[in-house]
């Protein structure tokens, strides 16, 4: 970075402040000894976190979200990995069109996806809404993300390693297990983490597809209407923010490590 006064640098600092400012108010007020999110701050307290932990329906929602998130992240990564391999290593007829189709959830407004799934589940399959239906919706959102992460990872390392393995007599499966998978591991881990975060934080689809067991964001939304529930909501929101940030940093570090170790001297 240049030592001279750089207007763009100042701009970037303000940009980051604007990005984080509103979000950081939540942890700030969650530690404030007051029942409203207002200035002046009254003093430090952890009681809102205690109230949150004592709220059993909140804890049930947290458990539901963890279960759905873990199942969805494992399933979608397990589905995305072979698909990413197919599109980067094999000449699949119509592969480009299939890929574009599978990336649609990234651009279609999620309310359309949500009501569409609702119609299929209630009218065509006649199934009751449950955590399973929420998970189905999340799977559709996560597969494209998992594929994006894995495809860029699979394109990122030297294919001659796999060819060498085949030339030395290893079969397709053995090459995958002993060469491709270890090299793709950083991508797999960041796909697992990112899919978990997507599922854990997803609101619109969960809101439409949730039955009696709600996920955490749906529960949170139902609490936002009640001013007296605000402190507990702030505490929970802060924990979610911190948790997501930690997972993202982890995912990024894992991904960067992988890149760095393949191309030494190049970051």
């Amino acid at each position, binding site marked *: 970075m240049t030592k001279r006064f750089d207007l763009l640098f100042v701009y970037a600092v303000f940009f980051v402040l604007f*990005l984080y400012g509103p979000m950081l108010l939540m942890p700030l007020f969650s530690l404030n000894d007051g029942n409203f999110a207002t200035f002046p701050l009254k003093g430090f307290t952890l009681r809102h976190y205690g109230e949150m932990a004592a709220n059993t329906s909140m804890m049930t929602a947290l458990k539901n979200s963890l279960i759905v998130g873990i199942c969805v992240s494992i399933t979608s990564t397990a589905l995305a990995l072979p698909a990413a391999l197919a599109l980067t290593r094999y000449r699949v007829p119509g592969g480009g069109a299939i890929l574009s189709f599978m990336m649609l959830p990234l651009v279609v407004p999620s309310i359309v996806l949500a009501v569409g*799934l609702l*119609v299929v589940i209630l009218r065509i399959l006649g199934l009751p809404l449950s955590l399973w239906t929420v998970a189905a919706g999340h799977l559709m959102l996560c597969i494209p993300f998992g594929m994006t992460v894995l495809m860029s990872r699979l394109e990122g390392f030297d294919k001659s390693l796999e060819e060498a393995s085949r030339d030395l007599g290893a079969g397709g499966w053995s090459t995958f297990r002993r060469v491709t998978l270890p090299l793709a591991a950083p991508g797999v881990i960041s796909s697992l983490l990112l899919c978990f975060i997507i599922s854990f934080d997803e*609101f619109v689809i969960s809101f439409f597809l949730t039955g009696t067991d709600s996920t955490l964001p749906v529960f949170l939304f139902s609490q936002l209407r009640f001013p007296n529930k605000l402190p507990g909501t702030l505490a929970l929101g802060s924990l979610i923010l911190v948790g997501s940030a930690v997972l993202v940093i982890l995912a990024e570090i894992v991904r960067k490590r992988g890149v760095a170790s393949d191309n030494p001297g190049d970051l």
Partner: protein
Amino acid sequence: MSAGSARTGLSLLSPAFLVMAATLLAPVVALVVMSFWTQSGFEIDRTFTLDNYARLGEPGEGVVWYGIRFPFAYPVPAVLMVKSLAMSLMATICVIGVAWPMAYFLAFRVTRYKAMWIILLTIPFWTSYLLRVFSWKIVLGFNGAINSGLQWLGLIREPLEFLLYNPIAVMITLAHSWIAFSVLPIYVSLEKIDRSLLEAASDLGDSKWARFRRITLPLSMPGTIAATLLIFIPTVGDYVTPTLVGGPGGTMVGSLVQQLFLKQNDAPMGAAISIVMMLIIAALVGLFLWAIGYGRMRKRIG
């Protein structure tokens, strides 16, 4: 490659594809089919009809909204559609305008700690959308941070009521919530620019500004366009932001779809409105890409 490898490829791809077909294709098809049905009381009449679409276009007395006349018997969807498009468009323009210099800074000025800057910009991208929107309610609310802060400082006596629950609040919140999505695509296309092109331009006598206008800006277009679409398309149908910070004046078409499905029990009409919304968005995106000559540009940049 051999036919065998194509077959292996297909069999590797098919599990993910089948799941996507069941959870993405089937719902869209179901929505299209349902939009041709009608709701009568608590039952759904499954005879094929264009009634829902006819009702959306049926002429009538209509309403006037911001000086624009909507001459329909059922004008609410049309008004909300135009309003959503206008609000998303404004939010998208603001986002791109604000994100572009940031992406430029990241691509051309940051040399050390680049990974840190990128992580800093990535975190908000992945944190809960619901919480990002909710944080604006805390900022702008009647009992919010701005009002209580200004009162505390003695600058105002009564809380400012105009901050929350209006279209401006929705646009600010939309812009803030989606800004993290736009920096990275623009950054990627700026980062890809061959630096020797810039040197060549300078050597051949271009001023800094001419160099920027003739090389940097055109070559950043793929990322800028991707970012524009990535924000504009989903925000038109957003439901969370108008519900939390929009109030009665800030509702958007997504809120109407939600009401038709979950509250007013007229799912076929909701389906028809969703379909029309997607078609309008697709048409606008197509028009936009055609207008800027996207096809030619892709061929040139490759």
